C-alpha cells in the first residue's frame, strides 16, 4: 500500500507540540488569573435594597463602625444592623427620602431589609471577628477603606493564601486598639513618644531614640504590638479555622 501521508506531514508532530505548548501555557495562565478570588471576588458590588453610603455616614458624619456593627468586638459574627438602628436617626432625619423607602417598609412590616451579603466566608471556615479586632487588626485590613465607599464592594481577595499572608506575618496589619476602627489611620500618624511609652520600643531597636520627630513605620508598630500582646496566629494548624 502506498504511503498515506504526504511529505508536509513530517512537520505535523512538531506543529502539534508547539500548539499544545502554547495552549497549555494559555490555559495555565488563564486559570491562574481568572480562577482566583483576586479576579472572582474583588470588585463584587451588588445592588442593595438601600444604597447605603458609608462615606457620608463615616467620613462626613463621623460615625464609628461599631455604632451599627455593634457585636464586632464581642462576637465571632459582625452583625449587619437591624432596621431599628437605622430608625434611631432616620425616624427624624431624611424621614421622607425616597431612597429610604425599604427601611421604612421594614420598620412598618417588622421584616428585615434584605441586604445582600458581600463578604462571604465558606461554612467550613470559622472566622472570629472579635479575636481579630481585639488584637489590633483593623477593619481596613480585610474590608479596605469602607469609609470612602459610596456603596460597599469587595475590595480584598479573601482567599486562604491571603489569610495566611497575615497569619504568617501579622506585624504588617497590627495597630493600636483605639485605631482599629479608624480606617484613615497611617503608621506615621502615631506619636512615637506616646506609643513607645505605652507599648515599649520595637524589638531589636531598644537603643534607638524615639524622642524627636521620629516617624514610626508599620513594621515597628506591628512588631512592638506583636511582642507586647504575644500575638501568635496559628499558621500551620488547620484546626485553627477549620474544625
Amino acid at each position, binding site marked *: *500500500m502506498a*504511503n*498515506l*501521508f504526504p511529505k508536509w506531514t*513530517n512537520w505535523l*508532530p512538531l506543529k502539534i507540540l508547539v500548539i499544545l505548548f502554547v495552549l497549555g501555557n494559555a490555559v495555565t495562565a488563564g486559570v491562574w488569573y481568572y480562577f*482566583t*478570588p*483576586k479576579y472572582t471576588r474583588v470588585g463584587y458590588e451588588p445592588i442593595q435594597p438601600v444604597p447605603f453610603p458609608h462615606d457620608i455616614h463615616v467620613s462626613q458624619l463621623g460615625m464609628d463602625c461599631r455604632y451599627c456593627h455593634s457585636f464586632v468586638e464581642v462576637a465571632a459574627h459582625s452583625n449587619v444592623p437591624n432596621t431599628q438602628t437605622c430608625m434611631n436617626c432616620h425616624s427624624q432625619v431624611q424621614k421622607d427620602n425616597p431612597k429610604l423607602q425599604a427601611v421604612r417598609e421594614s420598620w412598618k412590616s417588622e421584616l428585615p431589609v434584605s441586604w445582600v451579603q458581600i463578604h462571604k466566608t465558606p461554612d467550613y471556615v470559622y472566622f472570629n471577628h472579635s479575636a481579630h479586632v481585639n488584637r489590633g487588626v483593623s477593619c481596613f485590613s480585610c474590608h479596605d477603606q469602607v469609609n470612602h465607599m459610596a456603596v460597599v464592594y469587595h475590595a480584598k*481577595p479573601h*482567599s*486562604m*493564601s*491571603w*489569610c*495566611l*499572608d497575615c497569619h504568617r506575618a501579622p506585624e504588617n496589619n497590627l495597630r493600636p486598639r483605639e485605631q482599629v476602627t479608624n480606617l484613615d489611620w497611617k503608621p506615621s500618624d502615631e506619636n512615637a513618644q506616646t506609643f513607645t511609652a505605652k507599648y515599649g520600643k520595637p524589638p531589636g531597636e531598644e537603643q534607638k531614640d524615639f524622642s524627636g520627630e521620629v516617624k514610626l513605620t508599620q513594621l515597628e508598630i506591628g512588631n512592638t504590638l506583636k511582642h507586647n500582646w504575644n500575638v501568635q496566629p496559628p499558621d500551620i494548624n488547620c484546626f485553627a479555622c477549620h474544625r
Partner: protein
Amino acid sequence: MANHTATLDSDAAAVKRVPLIINDRKANWVTDNISTIVEAKTPIWWWVAFCITAPIALFGCFCIAYQISTGVGVWGENHPVGWAWDITNFVFWIGIGHAGTLISAILFLTRQKWRTSINRASEAMTLFAVVCAGIFPGIHVGRVWMVWFLAPVPWYNGIWPNFRSPLLWDVFAVSTYFTVSVLFWYTGLVPDLATLRDRAKSRVKKFFFTVFALGWRGSNRQWRHYEMAYLILAGLSTPLVLSVHSVVSFDFATSVIPGWHATIFPPYFVAGAIFGGFAMVLTILIPARLLYPQLYDVITQQHVEKMAKIILLTGSIVGYAYAMEFFVAWYGANPYEQWAFLRNRLADPYIIGPALHVQPAPYWWAYWSMITCNVIAPQLFWKKSWRRNTLIVFIVCNFVNAGMWFERFVIIVTSISRDFIPSSWHLYHPSWVEIWTFIGTFGIFLSLFLLFMRFLPMIAMSEVKIVLPEADPHHNAPDAHVGVEAHH
C-alpha cells in the same frame, strides 16, 4: 591431533546452550508468525473471552460510580478498619507491575537475552496492573473531585500537600512509575509498529500504525538513537523496580501500628512484588501460548523454567521475611507487636492456638492461606521436572496470585482491626460493592490485555530477532573443526 579436536568438539557440545528461540526459526518466521496474531481475523475464542471480561469490567466501573456517587459508606470499612480491600487491592496490583519493569529494565541491563521473548507482554501487563492499582487510592479518598489536592499545585489556598507524608511520596512514585513504564513500552514498540505499518492491508490500520510508528524507517541512525533511548529508559526504570514498592511499604512502615511499623518492609515488599509479578506474567503467558501455538517456539520451556526459578527465589525471600517479622517481634520485646503477630495472625483454632492456650486469631485463615500459597507452594519448584511442567507451574502461579493478595490483606486488616483499645475492636467484612470492584479490576485488566493481544504485537519482534542464531555474527561461519573432520 585428531584426538585433541574430538575432545574440543565434545566440550563444545557439553557447554552448548539451548537456543532461546527453538526449532531454528528465522527472522522472517518471527515477523510472519507474530504479525499474523494482529493481522488475522478476530478468533472466536477472543470474542468469547472478551464478552466475559468486558461486562465484568463494566460492572466494576458501575460499582466505582456507585461508590463515588453514594460515598465510601457503601464499603464495609468502619472504625478502626479504615483501610481494607481498597488498599489491599492497590498494593496487590501495583506489586504485579514490578515483574514487567524488572524484565524490561534490570534483565536488559544485566544482558539476560531471554527477556526478549516475554518483555513486551510483561510491560503491557505492568501498565494494565498500574491502571487497576491507580483506581483504588483514587476512589478511597471519598471525594474524588478533590483528589487533585494530592498534586503540589500553587493555588490561592496557599497550602501544599504534606511532603513529609509517605502517602504523597506514593503519588509521585506511582505516577513516575506509570509514566516511565509507558515510555519504555512505547519506545520498544516503535520498530514493531513500523513492521506492521509496512505489512498493513487496510487503510485504517495503515493510518494508525503510520502515526504511531513515528516515521520509523529502520535506518542505522534511527537504530543508534533507539538503542540509546532504550538504554537510558532502562537506567531510569531500574531504580523504580526497587523504589516504587519501597515507597508503598512506607505507607505502613512509617506508622506506629504494630504489624505495620517494621523496618524490614521495603525489601520484603519489593521481593513480594517481583514474586507476585512473575506469577502473573506466567498466568497470562501460559494460556496465551496455548491459544497461539507458534509462541511455543518463542516462549519456550526454558523461559517458563527461568521464571519459575525467580518465583522460587523471591518466594523464599518472602518466606524468610515472614519469619523475620516474628523474630523481630520477639527480639524487639514489644508486647503489642508480639500480640499482633501471635493473637491477630498466627494463632489458629486447631494447633497453635490450643497449644499456646490463646483464643484463635479472627483472621487466622487469611494468615495461613498466605503461608500456604506464598511460602509452601513455590517450594515445588525445587524439583526440575515440576518447574518444567506447565500445568504445575500454572497452578502454583495461581496459588501465588492468591497468596500475594492474602499477604496484603493480612498486613492491612489484621493489624488495625484489633488495635490498642479493645473497646474499639471491630471485625471487617467487605460489602458486595468492594468485592465487585475488585473483581471488576480483573475484568479491566484482562479486557485491556485481550485488546493488547489483538491490536499490538505481543512479542517484541525486533528484539527477538536479535537473539536468533541467525543474528550471531559467527552464524554459518566456516567451522575450523568441522573442516578438519571433513578432510579426514
